[in-house]
């Protein structure tokens, strides 16, 4: 194994909550040096969101903050003060990538817009991640995860499997994805763009500015479904769905995806070759869907008599695409996840030793590595301000007293 993929790259993060911090974490865990700038005293909003250790709110024990801020150095800074602004500029001078998530217009008011920053560092790649992007009528709209998830169209595209003759239920509103999934998406999209620009820059181009809209990140992910309806509003009527889908079993829920013939045949094998599955109604995909009202209950009935583990492992032995609906506890206990080392223990001075998800990609040469736990608020002030920027102890104390840091 060599060094990590982004070793030597310097990232400056001026972000809160999920999208921006995830973007910088993705790079930090691949070896980039990330300096995270937080508001003096308050810090990142995620520090005030749970889940907290033992459910006791504490700025250093938020699970959301701990996960999203591994492999970062943390400093406090108020760039709204003249001294703070100068420090921000000094940090930018030395950075390859700046990630920021303030409301459009904010950086300009601070005198820290791309135009200004690119003058002191022409090779800077500045990435702004905001709910709606830098232009357009909603650019200053306030948004939380639920708002972005729904406006992107994604809440309307939960697969309604299995097919039934029932009409779409209009009494219950569309529902968002769990956790902050849509916010993670925006961070991932920003990270991809930033290191694409980094690649270009290191091939001889200049730095540049990247505008990431979280809404667009989500729309792009659902481009097939959204495109179908944008081109033809009646697309839904032709959607037949498929047999199987999400079903209750003896001890939980299971998902079966078996529209294609060979997948269906595997499912039939799994169910022990019942006679009904060889009848005319099961002849091909179309006839199976047409007879779903009669066939689906037969599949449901078989599932209810078997456990998640039985269905999963036996089904997979026949190459039937089937998976259990896992809780986080099930995932933690998964032999497959264990064997691949998906969880790693990281020690944190306040939150203690906890298990963290790592990453889904295993590089043969450049390892993924969370080189440190999330920073305490202002943990690296001394190291960065005195060690790198040459402040004296007195200057540090005075900046602390005047609320600059």
């Amino acid at each position, binding site marked *: 194994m060599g060094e990590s*993929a982004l*070793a030597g790259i310097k990232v400056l993060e001026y972000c809160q909550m999920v999208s921006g911090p995830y973007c910088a974490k993705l790079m930090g865990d691949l070896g980039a040096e990330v300096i995270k700038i937080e508001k003096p005293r308050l810090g990142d909003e995620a520090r005030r969101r749970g*889940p907290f250790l033992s459910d006791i709110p504490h700025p250093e024990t938020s*699970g*959301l903050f701990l*996960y999203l801020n591994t492999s970062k150095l943390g400093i406090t800074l108020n760039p709204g003060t003249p001294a703070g602004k100068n420090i921000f500029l000094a940090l930018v001078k030395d950075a390859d990538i700046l990630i920021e998530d303030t409301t459009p217009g904010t950086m300009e008011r601070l005198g820290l817009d791309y135009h200004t920053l690119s003058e002191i560092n022409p090779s800077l790649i500045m990435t702004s991640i905001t709910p*709606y992007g830098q*232009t*357009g*009528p*909603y650019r200053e709209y306030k*948004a*939380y995860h*639920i*708002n972005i998830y*729904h*406006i992107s*169209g994604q809440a309307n595209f*939960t697969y309604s499997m299995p097919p039934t003759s029932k009409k779409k239920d209009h009494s219950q*509103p*569309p529902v*968002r*994805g769990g956790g902050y999934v849509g916010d*993670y998406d925006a961070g991932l999209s920003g990270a*991809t763009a930033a290191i*694409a*620009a*980094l*690649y*270009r820059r290191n*091939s001889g181009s200049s730095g*540049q500015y990247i505008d*990431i809209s979280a809404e*667009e990140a989500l729309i792009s992910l*659902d*481009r*097939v*479904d*959204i*495109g*179908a*309806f*944008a*081109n033809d509003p009646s697309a839904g009527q*032709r*959607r*037949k769905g498929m047999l199987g889908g*999400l079903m209750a079993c003896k001890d939980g*829920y299971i998902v079966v995806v078996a529209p294609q013939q060979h997948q269906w045949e595997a499912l039939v094998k799994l169910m022990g070759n019942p006679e009904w599955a060889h009848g005319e109604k099961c002849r091909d995909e179309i006839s199976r869907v047409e007879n779903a009202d009669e066939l689906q209950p037969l599949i449901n009935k078989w599932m209810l008599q078997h456990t998640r583990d039985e269905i999963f492992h036996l089904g*997979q032995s026949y190459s039937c695409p089937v998976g259990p609906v896992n*809780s986080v506890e099930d995932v933690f206990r*998964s032999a*497959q996840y264990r*064997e*691949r080392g*998906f969880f790693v223990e990281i020690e944190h001075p306040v939150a203690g030793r906890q298990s963290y998800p790592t990453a*889904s*990609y295993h*590089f043969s*040469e450049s390892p993924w590595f969370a080189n440190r736990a999330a920073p305490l608020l202002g943990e690296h002030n001394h190291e960065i301000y005195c060690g790198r920027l040459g402040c004296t102890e007195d200057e540090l104390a005075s900046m602390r007293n005047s609320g600059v840091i």
Partner: protein
Amino acid sequence: MVKHPLDGIRVVDFTWAWAGPYATLLMALLGAEIIKVESMKRPDHTRLRSLMAGPTLGSPDHSTVFNDINLNKLSVMLNLTKPEAIDIAKRIIKTADVVTENMRPGVMDRLGLGYEALKEVKPDIIMLSSSALGSTGPERTYVGYAPTFAAISGLAYASGYPDGQSSTLSGAIDTRVAATSAFAILAALNYRQRTGRGQNIDLSSSEAISSLAGEMFLDYSMNRRITERTGNHDTVMAPHNCYPCMGEGHWVTIAIATDEEWHALCQASGNPGWTRDKKFSTAPDRHRNREELDTLVSGWTSRHTEYEITDTLQKVGVAAAPSLTGEMVDKDPHSRERGIFCELEHPLIGKRKVVVPPWRFSATPAMPPRAAPLLGEHNHYVLGELLGLSQKEIARLKEAQVVY
């Protein structure tokens, strides 16, 4: 000439379905040249059918699903069951930077196209293999699609209504896996640029989705708590829901985090009596009584359109947004202004609106979308121009069903 971020990068793409092709779509939109290796023997099933697209198509070149997820790519036909096709594939790879595949672990090795074999041909090649659960571990041979990835990852369990079933979300589960793949490939390209070394990347689709639910796993680690479904509710914020508006299928989302936002909502809704009810005076009170509060907020929202509510609330600093369908996204004023869709011409499908690239670069723009390739549309470019095979030779390969 306009430069794009990945100009000069060539990807040989053996992926199919959604989770692979969206990764190479992102790279294509960043300017890389994607050569999709396909065959009549094993057509990408999205060319013929799709879980949600309805009836099976008779031609491999009429699929809108295939089009939307394979924009800007080239297609060469190679029948990988023929040894000669494997040799040709390797010759293409010799000219390339990246290889992608999402077959079941082991299949590329058996074809003679595994990482070790390709490294012989092109020592600094970057190869990404994306599979259901990764290429190591006891479940490495298991197969899956978006709904099973969502289920196994833990995210589906925590999505949906508390009193209903889990939600496996949408096809965007596949594209999330793909977005993760694209990031990993770009990291490897940066590493190669610095060190000259290629590498193999083994990606687990289910793990890619688990990574997007990090805080739930920390909650389990810290408190042994299993994250349960909350529908549109939040663990601390209230009101926080999707509320009915005028007309069937019209909804608006509203989220209140602070007292300031709460008071703004009260005022914007005309300060009805219930806004002064003690039950709702503090954030914890509002969260405790959120069901009742939702009913009262719904009484207000349902007399207006989702755009009226959004406009009214945003003016006073409250987070609100309509809940849109695909056609509504297309008609939304902000989408229009940002140009989220563009129209292209496909030789067989005709005019089609597609979603533009999701990043706006100031110096090296993403590529404007072009229609997806017809099956084998670029046989001549790849075999003739790139590899220098003669017309006669290409005709012979077609005859022998190597190019097929």
